[in-house]
């Protein structure tokens, strides 16, 4: 599978990444190279093989329903780009 500029743009939009227009061919080339590498997997038949989620095939541990966290808003918002009245601020969201 080789990717063209239009596909790169579409993927970049999905990933919300601004990419320089003039670098798109470069990305398309690199991504196509990676996909060619990846497609070597097709050489092996994996019919009926259970995908591996955890090497030990462990299962999910459950946490007791207990409130353990306290308010740390000030601490957390000290590193935020923009806040007001305890809220994180972002450019206006249009619904």
């Amino acid at each position, binding site marked *: 599978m080789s990717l063209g500029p239009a596909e790169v743009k579409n993927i970049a939009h*999905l990933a*919300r990444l601004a990419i320089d227009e003039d670098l798109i061919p470069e990305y398309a080339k690199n991504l196509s190279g990676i996909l060619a590498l990846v497609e070597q997997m097709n050489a092996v038949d994996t019919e009926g093989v259970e*995908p591996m*989620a*955890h090497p030990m095939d*462990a*299962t*999910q*541990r*459950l*946490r*007791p*329903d*207990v*409130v*353990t*966290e306290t*308010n*740390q*808003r000030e601490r*957390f*918002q000290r590193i935020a780009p*923009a806040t*007001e*009245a*305890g*809220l*994180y*601020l*972002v*450019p*206006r*969201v249009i*619904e």
Partner: protein
Amino acid sequence: MEWETVIGLEVHVQLLTRSKIFSGASTAYGAEPNTQACAVDLGLPGVLPVLNEEAVRMAVKFGLAIGAEVAPRSVFARKNYFYPDLPKGYQISQYELPIVARGHLDIDLEDGTTKRIGITRAHLEEDAGKSLHEDFAGMTGIDLNRAGTPLLEIVSEPDLRSAKEAVAYLKKLHSLVMYLEICDGNMQEGSFRCDANVSVRRKGDPKFGTRVEIKNVNSFRFVERAINYEVERQIELLESGGKVVQETRLYDANRDETRSMRTKEEANDYRYFPDPDLLPVVVDAELLARVRETLPELPDAKRQRFMEEYGLNQYDATVLTATRELADYYEHVVRESGGLAKPAANWVMVELAGALNKSGLELRDSPVTPQMLGQLLKRIQDGTISGKIAKEVFEAMWNGEGEPDEIIEKRGLKQVTDVAAIEALVDQVIAANPAQVEQYRAGKDKVLGFFVGQVMKASGGKANPAQLNELLRKKLGPAGG
């Protein structure tokens, strides 16, 4: 042209856990913005989710209650999209392997029949935060307190054929999750939210029409209105030769209309994949058995029992089992009254419901407890007071004047059953009304009512009516000489 409406509902139920689904932050409603958003909820670099055991139990409980298959192994997946109130850039949800699948709910139709509605699946996921669009110098404010609150998304089959059926299903589901004590059912606070998939097709057409998803229909009334509006819009469109576009529409309650949010082409590519930070969730036989033990009597079974055990008709049984709280209240009254099932039903449905309605109080805040009401019914039954006086006592109880016996005593409402006392009053009345005595003896036996009224009045309503009648007849002699 005859059209058929096809509706499927997706309901998001906030589970009543103390802490969030993947973190130890509180789920309490109404806190100051972002004071209940911990490092995990904020998606800080490096944090990891750990699943809340209670959320799993609640999902399993729901699965058992709708006769569904509870998956022995279910998997959390990431639903990837960007939105400011979605802190990690993905929502942890379940996709290919939900925890609950293939259940059903029976709803009552207006013609008295019941209809089985299929429930495709119910899966666990985390809620997002809230975007506040008030003006912060042209910016939107983000509150992440709600982020990570556990949700059970319940998806029905497209089995509903009218807005009324949709509402009946929603009400039934609402009642069920509250019965199960897995949701507080508070629709204003968003604990029970609904999206509707609506399409229309020509009657007899085996294929479904193009469906439209309506978001944000969060009251029973709005669901009905939004669906009706949408059905009309689609039929009009099709009849005028147009086509329904697959899209997401938002219901605007103020204008009573739906409007387009995004079309299928603009829909997100969510790039679901199993969340590598979480492992498959295993529900084994032991957990299943333990949850089964906590399952309460379900609404349908309870209604059936009320009809059989208390001799109630279907309507009364339905009303009294509408919520677990009301059913419990009723049964408590019955027990307290020594088994006065029918009077208890009347008093709960008429006097109590009326008083609650008038005062705008919830049942749990009722000043009249089931013990008090049960005692009151007992006093009617044993002749201490009449039904009419009982209403006065009820009102006094409502106003906080105390227990029924206390009120009866304090206000001196006890029926006079002392024969001598009633006899004295009867003699007085007879002596004071010779003309009426004449009439009675002449055969006008209707005059007896006059005497009853007079004696009652003189007794302040406390004379025992049966006793009084008997005494009057004896004193006045046989009517019609």
